[in-house]
């Protein structure tokens, strides 16, 4: 549901940047989205397409890099990747909620022409 609002925020940023760069067309937008960001890629893609109609973003490729969830284990002083959604260190079995990656919701870069 809230993907639409997030897509609108993204659209405002990329259209603004395209305008500043004097570009007529946004070729590609690269995002990094963590598995904990609470954003469904499909819903975001749909909203971005809908909002981009008749703008320089009409034919933009929205490329999403999924960032896995990684937590920090204090006893082992190590970062481990969590299987969604078990937060136990595979080495010592301790539960951890110290999230190191997986909450990202970032525009990484974009290409215009």
């Amino acid at each position: 549901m809230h993907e639409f609002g997030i897509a609108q925020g993204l659209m405002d940023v990329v259209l603004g940047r395209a305008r500043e760069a004097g570009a007529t067309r946004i070729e590609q937008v690269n995002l990094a989205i963590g598995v904990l960001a609470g954003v469904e890629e499909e819903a975001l893609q749909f909203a971005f397409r809908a909002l981009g109609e008749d703008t320089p973003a009409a034919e933009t490729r929205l490329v999403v890099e999924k960032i896995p969830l990684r937590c920090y284990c204090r006893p082992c002083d190590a970062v481990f990747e969590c299987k969604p959604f078990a937060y136990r260190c595979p080495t010592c079995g301790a539960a951890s909620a110290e999230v190191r990656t997986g909450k990202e919701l970032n525009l990484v870069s974009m290409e215009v022409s």
Partner: protein
Amino acid sequence: MCETCGCAVNHHPHEHPHHGDDHDHHHDHGTAESAGGPHALLAMNDRLAAGNRRHFREHGVTVVNIVSSPGSGKTALLERTIRTLAPELRVAAIVGDLATDNDAARLRSAGAPAHQITTGSACHLDAHMIHHALDDIRLGDLDLLLIENVGNLVCPAAFDLGEDLFVVLLSTTEGEDKPLKYPVIFLKADAVVLNKTDLAAAVEFKRDIAMANIETAAPKAKVFTTSARTGDGVEAWLDYLRRHVKAKRSLAG
């Protein structure tokens, strides 16, 4: 004009660039270049949340963001919380719903000033809405601000409001596996309140399974089991709030 967020107070027509006439479809391929660096998509919300958090800290106010699915008993728990705490602490509430101010009216009857945010169609509260609700709330006169979020276990996880404590409430009638179905919001929880224990027997609620699931999905959370209706178990929850209020007050000096 609001100086923090730059919007017209209580009215925020966001500027959406319009394109059309000046946009020609003559494309020149093969000359793509990069435009601008990395940008956090929730930067606006996070900036406003940081502003809210700073205000709360300056006034030593403890702020609790309470989320659950619709009908889990958020308002009932807050009514009881306010009834017990209002004589000893200065409490106020902000309530989010798509429509009606029924919940704010209930919390006012319980004894606290309550500000209703009706979101229209938005499925969550965001830092911007809280920022404007604060126009109505005198933080200097408060110890504890309770924010009842829109009933939804998905979207509120993404929007920091500036709170100290993020509390997820679930009820026995919703089934034992709720924490596993909504892992994103449960992982964020500082506390989990398992409510409607008075109905547990009627729905054959399996407490051990639910507790194991909460521990799996919310490893850092304090867990409380309550019946907001009978008051059973509520005292431990209230003590938890009292401790946080005291700690934050002492930080504020």
